[in-house]
């Protein structure tokens, strides 16, 4: 399971599926608990997929509104988290399609991103110069992810950032294991190609 999937693993209290049942039985707080568990998960996914915080917040809202309307169709055949990831990924693609600026390859994907991330705690006790370099590389990584075609991006996100294994990625996206391997390989090659210049400068 994902190292970033804090929705369920290692959490005490009712499981996601139990919360879904409680909500369907009329307990509104159960849904709010699900939101509290998964808002960070959906925000992170949407941010990495779209490269923009306000779009990520919009998608987050769309996903949970959709969930409210569709929860009755959740049959419990798949895990709730798997289902939520799929719904969220589709919402990200839909949002990107609607928003031309995220489709434009010529535009700088996100001016505010490096600034937003600089607030986050940094484990490394780097020099200011080194920290700035790291920020720059992070910005480039995010830009490169944003430019990937959606099919590559989703596999890359789920595996390399979300921490799911190949089989889980295949389940979430409803594709074969071979397709996961192939798309991940191509996504990484593309990213590596874009970042090679930075790595060479750093060495």
């Amino acid at each position, binding site marked *: 399971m994902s190292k*970033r999937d804090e929705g369920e693993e290692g959490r005490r209290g009712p499981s996601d599926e139990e919360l879904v049942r409680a*909500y369907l*039985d*009329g*307990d*509104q*707080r159960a*849904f*709010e608990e699900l*939101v*509290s568990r998964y*808002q*960070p998960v959906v*925000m*992170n996914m949407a*941010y*990495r997929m779209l490269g923009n*915080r*306000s779009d*990520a*917040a919009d998608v*987050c*809202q769309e996903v*949970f*509104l959709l969930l*409210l309307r569709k929860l009755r169709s959740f049959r419990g055949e798949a895990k709730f988290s798997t289902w939520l990831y799929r719904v969220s990924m589709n919402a990200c693609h839909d949002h990107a399609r609607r928003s031309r600026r995220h489709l434009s390859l010529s535009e700088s994907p996100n*001016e*505010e991103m490096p*600034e*937003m*991330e600089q*607030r*986050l705690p940094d484990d490394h006790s780097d020099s200011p110069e080194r920290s700035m370099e790291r920020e720059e*590389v*992070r910005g480039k*990584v*995010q830009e490169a992810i944003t430019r990937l075609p959606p099919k590559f991006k989703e596999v*890359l996100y789920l*595996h*390399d*950032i979300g*921490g799911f*294994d*190949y089989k889980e990625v295949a389940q979430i996206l409803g594709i074969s294991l071979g397709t996961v*391997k192939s798309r*991940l*390989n191509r996504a*990484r090659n593309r*990213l*590596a190609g874009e*970042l*090679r210049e930075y*790595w060479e400068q750093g060495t």
Partner: protein
Amino acid sequence: MRCRKALRLLGPLLDGELKGEVAGIVRRHVEECASCARRFSELQSLVRELTALPEIVPTEDESIRLLRRLRLEMTAPSQPHPRHLRLRTAAVTACILAAVFTVVTWALVTGGRGKAPPEEINAARGTAIEETASGMTSGRGEAQTSAPYPQVAGELAVRPLLLLSQKEYSSNELESYREDLGTRMAFYSAYWYPLSGDVDSPLLPTLQEKLISDLLEQASRSGLNPEELRKAIETSLAQGGQNLLPCQAELSRLQGREVWLVSLSGPEDYLLFPDPQMPPALHLAAWGGSESLKLSDAFVKELAERLLPLGNRIAVSCSSGEYRGEGKEGSPETGQGKQGGEGMVPETAEEDFQAFIRELAAQGSSMDAVSALQKLNYEQILMLLQGEWAALASSGVNLSDFLVPPHRLWAVDRATGQILWGKTHSQ
């Protein structure tokens, strides 16, 4: 193994997705082939970069907005309305509080002696209290609040309270009265919570009209002129906000004159349900916005104009009481860019700010606000101007210094219809 095949398997090798024998073959190839070794190293670097990307943590503001939107959706009339555990708890608590309040009110109006007041008042009050108490204790509030909202077409989930205390209040007592949200608890649980505190809900006018009619009917049964009370309520609504809900009217005395004390319920009654994870003042800020700011609009505007446009790097925009510094790198959503554009010199701004505060203190204006502002540094003052309450709270500022419950109590002269006490637009 050929490089072409090895290259395809480098990823699965790194991810631990290759089985023993194949993994060994690929690993040996990488050890022997400089080109594939370089690609493998690149792959390791890439995955390291990806896993090191920082997590995005939703801000409190983002979480609040999301929850408000979802609650609105959950309580929309077209949606199946789930049983409302929190609301039921609230309703039960409201019943208890209402019962306590009724007893306290009874003690107040009887002077704690249980002595019967004049007959006319006694009869009227008896009716009001009895009906209210029976409405609450019979479980009417609880039963109806768990039904789909709103119950505007039928009986009210919680009825407004008419009191004929004739008590002489001092201005100080009215201050306490206004700050006491206890009487609005039932209103919050029955009306504002299901509406997610949305003061723009199209359901509110109908609900408001029903509440007013109920109060007027109680007044009429008590032998009072209902039109007189209607005018007092309308006067209060004109000051407080047209979509608030009249929850209590008390016939009492102020400065020797008979007055109607009209109390309006608003979404800030959320304070009655404090979230242990958030300070009550933050809730207030979330619901009350700029209305609950202790600083006057003019004061905030002056502050913003003095501080923000240094070097014309930051444009000050004023709309709906919000003043945002829109630096070129600024991100209003995240509160980034508080330092403004690249030409902004925070030290200069800090000095200017301190000088400005000294100037205000010398003028003797808004002393409370000045002393509260003096505790803030420059960055915090920008958070204040931008309404970033969560950030302000997390930086250690006590929000209560800057926020007050919105004024929702007015004393309207029974004879003239003039406001004798309470915040008016002209103030």
